[in-house]
């Protein structure tokens, strides 16, 4: 069996935050902090850049807007011309409400799909879910930092020492 990563349990968000800063400064890249509730400032402590989901949202929105405009132009002014209320065959004004709604719809699709892609979802199982200590702690009152063995900087002894010096009272290797 392979090892998934080294798990360090902290009692308070402040401890986890300080540990995250140390791990960030040590240059690790494949690691994460699991908390029972959102902790403000943790992303900065982890050195996480802004999420890329926004780009998926934006692309979805642009797609929706152009789809709406093109669809209405194609149906009303090109494929089957119908005069309605003496209005022009195509006008951005009457096309706008529908295009706008498609913008929102596709933008939300983009956000959802982007979130799934970036999180590598759907995923049926994760090694951490087998660990009783993790499941009980991360959903209740513990703040858990996990550094994966796949990290290029990972070294069993040194990483363990780093996490111990950060103040963790329980460090454990999680099996895959």
């Amino acid at each position: 069996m392979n090892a998934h990563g080294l798990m360090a349990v902290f009692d308070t968000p402040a401890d986890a935050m300080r540990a995250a800063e140390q791990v960030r400064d040590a240059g690790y890249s494949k690691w994460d902090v699991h908390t029972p509730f959102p902790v403000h400032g943790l992303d900065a402590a982890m050195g996480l850049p802004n999420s890329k989901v926004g780009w998926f949202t934006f692309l979805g929105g642009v797609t929706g807007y152009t789809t709406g405009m093109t669809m209405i132009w194609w149906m009303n002014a090109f494929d089957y011309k119908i005069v309605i209320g003496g209005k022009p065959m195509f006008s951005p004004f009457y096309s706008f409400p529908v295009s706008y709604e498609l913008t929102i719809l596709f933008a939300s699709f983009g956000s959802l799909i982007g979130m799934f892609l970036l999180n590598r979802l759907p995923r049926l199982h994760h090694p951490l879910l087998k660990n009783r200590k993790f499941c009980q702690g991360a959903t209740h009152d513990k703040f858990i930092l996990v550094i994966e063995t796949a990290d290029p900087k990972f070294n069993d002894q040194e990483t363990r020492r780093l996490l111990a010096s950060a103040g963790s009272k329980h460090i454990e290797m999680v099996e895959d």
Partner: protein
Amino acid sequence: MTSHAINLLSAARAGDLQSPSAVLAGTQGGDWKSPARFFAGLRHGVAAVLVALFAAALLGNGAVAAEHAKPEAKAEHQAEASHAGHDHSHGPAGHPTELKKFGYAYLTAYMFCLSLCLGALFIVILNHLFDAQWMVPIRRFLEHIACQLFPTMFILWLPIGFLARDIYPWMSEEMQRNPDHALLAKFPLFTITAFYIISGVIFLVWGFVAHGLRRASLAQDKDGAAVHTRVMRRYAAFGIFAFAFSLTGAAIFWMKALSHQFFSTMYGVVYFAGSVWVMAITTYWLLLYFRNRGDLKDVTREVTFHDCGKLFFAFTVFYAYIHFSQYFLIWNAAVPEETFWYVAREAGTWKWVGYLTIFGHFWFPFLFLLPIRNKLNFTAMSMLAAWAWTCHYLDLQFNIGPVLYPDGLHLGIYDVLSLGGMLAVLTFMFTRAFNAHPPYPQRDPRVAEAMGVYVEPASGKAAH
């Protein structure tokens, strides 16, 4: 235990926020009351954008004048005018008198300054309605701006009151003698007596709400009592309704009444959305200015600017939504009683002002503000503030100007003098008020939270 942890968290967060200080152009220390210090927070970019835009507007203005000096253009214009026949959209045709020119320029400048004051009043009310902590740092200077509504803005309104018969076509003697159907249909409201009474009431309402809010806020600085917060909430709760009615009244009586035949249920909301839009970016800019100057250094964090930027972004979308709704309903219904208003605004250079509202007022800020980092780019946001002021001013020109100048946008010395003079008066009054009081609510229950500091509640201390 937990509170201790969060305390440390806040400290960690506060430490992390020092990075944008490198972007600041603010000077440290020194006597900020000296004139040189006054400009310390100003950026060259803002001035450059304003000057460039104003120069562009003047050039465009010159081009229009040259176009109309040509004989064939004149003939064409006359043919057009005779073709239009009994078109009721235009007020005073031909060459307007100097008094009229001044009146329109003054009215435009006045509505611009009124936007700033009303926007400030709205954001203060919003602060209390939502019990928002991030607004505490910006609240005090907004309270001062809102208090300019009365008496400063009332005194500045008086020239409009005196010139009303020259400015508003429906008040002209001829119209009063032979009122048209549209004027008769609006009988109880659109009478000269009602105009002055309602205008007076509007100012009293604004004065009551704005000063009530500031009085309680200043009183809290002294004793820190919670009762003041409750008083402010009560003012905000009825104030939001009073604000909605009075703002709509002001927009209708002072601006829409220029074309009294026109009606649009969205008109007040459009003016409201534009006002808060321009005030949101002005707030951002003032926050930056006062932070660079040092007054708000202790309470301002990166997240304050981010939230301010988000408010501006929200109103960018809201204004577009509201103005589009007004245009779309009129376009779709195609009723001549309503369409004439936009038809008049498609003539000459007004068309380009309209395009500026679509692309400069909405699309450009909308796309620009999407990424977070742009909302925190102080140089870019300051330039955007200058851009927003220009767009909003031209939007008001778009509302007011075509009644006097059907051929296109006219900017002249009256516009410059009115706007400059009025802004000078307001800046003077505002600075005097700002310097006389603490720069932010000192003992607001949420001020510590706004600073990013955790203060243990009194009951929690007793338990330890």
